[in-house]
C-alpha cells in the first residue's frame, strides 16, 4: 500500500471528470422533474446516447458530431416516453423502467461490432494563462470542453428557472398542472419539450462516458450512472447548484476508491467498487427532506 502514489491535484482534477456525466444527465432530469414528470429512464437514455455518440464519432472521426448524435439519440428515446406518458397517459414509473430496459437492449444491439474499438481522442483544452496557475490550474482549467459544458448547463438551468419567464411557466406546470391549464398554458406541450431536453442531456452524459471517460464501448457501460443522476436530483432538492455539489461528492467517492484500488489498500477491490452506490444511498437518507414539485409523477388529463 502506498498512499503517496495518490496525487491530490490529479485526484481533484479527475473528480471533475468523473462527475461530468452525472452533472449532464442530472441537469436534464432536474428540468424534467421541475415540469412535473418523473422519467426513470435516465439510464436507458444515457446508454443510448453512449452508443449513438460512439458510433457517430467512430464513423465521422469527430467527437463533436458524436455528442450531437448522442443528444439526438437520448432525445429520440425520450420522445417514446413522452408519447406514452403524455398522450397515452401511462404510469410514469413503469414507463421509465420500460425505457431503461428498452434502452439497454437497443444499445446492445446497435453496439454490436463496436466492442473494443477505441474512440478518437477528445482533446483537452488548457485555458490560456489561468491553466498555468499552480494547483488550481490543473484542477479547474485544464479539461476537455464537456466539463465546462456541464458546469455551464447547471448555470443555465439555474438562470432559466430563476429568472426567465419560460422557467417560471415550467415551474408552474410542475407545481400544479390543473392551475396551469386553467390559466391557458399548454401543459403537455411544455412537458414534452422538457422530456426531450432531459433526454438530450442524458444522451450527452452517456456519450461522455463512452467517448471521454472510458473511452470505448461495452454493453451496459453506464453501470447505474443514470440512477445515480436521479438520486442526485432528489439530493439536490430540485435546485441546480446543489446538483453540482451532489455530483462532485459522488465523483469524489468514485475517484477516491479508484485511487485506493491503485494504491493497493487492504480492502478488497469489490468492496471499494460498491462504495459509490452506498454513498448514494447514504446521501439519499440524509437529504430526503426537500419538497418535490407538486404535480411530480401525476398523470395530467384535461377533462372538462
Amino acid at each position: 500500500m502506498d498512499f503517496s502514489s495518490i496525487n491530490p491535484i490529479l485526484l481533484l482534477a479527475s473528480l471533475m471528470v468523473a462527475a461530468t456525466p452525472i452533472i449532464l444527465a442530472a441537469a436534464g432530469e432536474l428540468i424534467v422533474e421541475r415540469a412535473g414528470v418523473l422519467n426513470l429512464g435516465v439510464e436507458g437514455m444515457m446508454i443510448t446516447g453512449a452508443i449513438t455518440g460512439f458510433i457517430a464519432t467512430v464513423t465521422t472521426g469527430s467527437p463533436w458530431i458524436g455528442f450531437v448524435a448522442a443528444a439526438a439519440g437520448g432525445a429520440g428515446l425520450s420522445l417514446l416516453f413522452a408519447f406514452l406518458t403524455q398522450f397515452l397517459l401511462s404510469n410514469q414509473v413503469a414507463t421509465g423502467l420500460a425505457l431503461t430496459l428498452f434502452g439497454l437492449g437497443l444499445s446492445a444491439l446497435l453496439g454490436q461490432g463496436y466492442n473494443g474499438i477505441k474512440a478518437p481522442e477528445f482533446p483537452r483544452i488548457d485555458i490560456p494563462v489561468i491553466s498555468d496557475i499552480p494547483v488550481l490550474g490543473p484542477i479547474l482549467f485544464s479539461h476537455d470542453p464537456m466539463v465546462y459544458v456541464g458546469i455551464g448547463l447547471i448555470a443555465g438551468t439555474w438562470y432559466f428557472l430563476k429568472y426567465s419567464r419560460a422557467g417560471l411557466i415550467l415551474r408552474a406546470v410542475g407545481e400544479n398542472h390543473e392551475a396551469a391549464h386553467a390559466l391557458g398554458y399548454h401543459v403537455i406541450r411544455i412537458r414534452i419539450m422538457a422530456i426531450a431536453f432531459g433526454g438530450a442531456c442524458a444522451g450527452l452524459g452517456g456519450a461522455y462516458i463512452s467517448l471521454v471517460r472510458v473511452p470505448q464501448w461495452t454493453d451496459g457501460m453506464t453501470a447505474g450512472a443514470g440512477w445515480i443522476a436521479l438520486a442526485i436530483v432528489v439530493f439536490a432538492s430540485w435546485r441546480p447548484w446543489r446538483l453540482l455539489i451532489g455530483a462532485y461528492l459522488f465523483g469524489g467517492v468514485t475517484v477516491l476508491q479508484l485511487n485506493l484500488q491503485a494504491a493497493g489498500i487492504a480492502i478488497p477491490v469489490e468492496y471499494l467498487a460498491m462504495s459509490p452506490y452506498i454513498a448514494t444511498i447514504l446521501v439519499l437518507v440524509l437529504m430526503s427532506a426537500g419538497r418535490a414539485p407538486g404535480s411530480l409523477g401525476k398523470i395530467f388529463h384535461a377533462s372538462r
Partner: protein
Amino acid sequence: MATDTLLELRGLTKAYPGVVANSDVSFTIGKGEVHALLGENGAGKSTLVKTIYGLVKPDTGKMTLNGVAYEPSEPRAARASGVAMVFQHFSLFDALDVAENIALGMENPPQMADLAARIREVSEQYGLPLDPNMVVGDLSAGERQRVEIIRCLLQDPKLLIMDEPTSVLTPQEVEILFKTLNILREEGTSILYISHKLEEIRTLCEHATILRHGKVVGNCDPRQTSARDMAEMMVGASLHVPEKAPHEAGEVVLSIRGLSAPAPHQFGTALKNITVDVREGEVLGIGGVAGNGQDELVAALSGEMKTAAGMVVIDGREIGRLGPNERRAAGLCAAPEERNGHAAAPDMSLTENALMTGAVRKNLVKNGLLDWPAAKAFAEEVIKAFDVRTPGPANAARSLSGGNLQKFVIGREIMQKPRVLVINQPTWGVDAAAAASIRQAILDLAVSGTAVVCISQDLDELREISDRFAALNEGKLTPPRPAKGLTIDEIGLMLGGAHDMEIAHVDA
C-alpha cells in the same frame, strides 16, 4: 341600450357525451353591471364560464364583446380581450410567491421588481393589501383569493368573472370584497358573479340569469325578488327544510381534551389546545374558513393522525393513540371532506367501498378473510336506504354523480349506527335535493342518540342543523355557543372577523 352592452351570448350550446352542459344559452351583460349567474351544481354554470374564458369551445352559438364577434381560442385570447377570471379552485401555485403567481396570469408582465411595486399599489388602492414576496401556500384562503383578484385587476379587465368567490370568506371578509367590487363597478367594469348564496346576490347584483339542466330558466332583478323564489327557480321545485324532532341531549359521549398536533405537512395547520364535549343526541357545528385546521381535526378524530391518548375520549375511554379501525370499534365513524380518493376509492366498486370502512362494525372480515356476500349486502342496504342512484353495487364509485356518491359515503357511516359521527362538509358540491336529504339523515341520527360533530364552511347549513356552534380559526376552537339566536355577525366574529386582513402581511 345597445351601446351599453358589453358581452352578449347568443344560443350557446355545448354537449359532452351523455350530457348537454349548455343548451341554447343566451343573455347579455351590460357595462358596469354586476350580473349574477345562478344555478345548482351541474346546472352548467362552470361550462358556460369556461366558454367565456376560452377554456371550452361551444358546439354552436355566438358571443359578441363590445359589438365585435368574440371567439377566444384560449384563455390568453380572452385575457387579451379584457376578460379576466377569479377561479374557485385550481389556479394558484402553492410553492411560488405572490408576484410569480400574478405574473403567470399576465400576458406581458413587467420586471419582477416593477411588478411587486404595482401589486402593492393596486392592492392598496382596492383595499386588498398583499405582500408580493409571500409564498402563496402560507396565505389564508381570503388572502389567496386576493392574489387572484389582484392578478385580474392588474390587467384592467372589462369583464371580471368570479366563480363562487365568497365560499372561502368570513362574513366580514365578504363585506370587504363587496366594497372592492363596488369600486370596480363604479369604474365601469362589468362583473359576472357566480354563486348559489342568494342573500349575497340580492345585496350585490342588479341582474340575475338562472340556469337549470344547462338551460336558461329565468331572469330577474335580485333586489326585487325573494331568495325563496330564486331558489325555486334554481331547483325547479319547492324545497324541503330539514326538521329535527325535539329531544334532550344526554350523556357526554365524545370529549376532546387539550387536543394539539403539529401541522402534518408544509402548508397544513397545527391544532392548538382544542377542548370540547359532545353529548348524546347533540349536533356540534364547527364553522371556519377553509384551511384553518378542518382536515387536521377530522384526521385527529378519525384516527388517521394519532395524538396523545387522553386528547380524544369516547365514553370515558382514551382513544387518541388508536388507529381508524380501533376507533370504529369504539364507536367513532367519520366522513372526510374529499369524496374522491379519501372518503371513497373512485376506481373501486361500491361493494369494495362499503367494505372499506364498514369492515369492523358490520363484521365483514372474519379471521382476515373477506366476506364478500355480506359486503355486497351492506352496500345494497346503503344504496336503498339513502336512495343512491346507481345500477348496482358492482359499479365503480367514480361513475356516481357527486351528490349520489356523497349520499353513499354519509349513508355508509350512518348505517353503522356509530356512537359518534364526525363529518366534514357533508353537502359540499351536492345538489339541493340531495343536500336536504343528507341533512335530514344527520338530524335523524342525532335524534337516535348519536353525538354528531359537523364541520362545514356553509354557515347556513350549520345554523340549520347545529345545537351548538363553535368556530375553528388557525387551529384553535372557540368555546361553543348555543346555535339558536346567533346572528351572522356574531358568527363572523367567532370565525376571526376579517382575519386581521387589512393589516395582514403588508409591512412584513
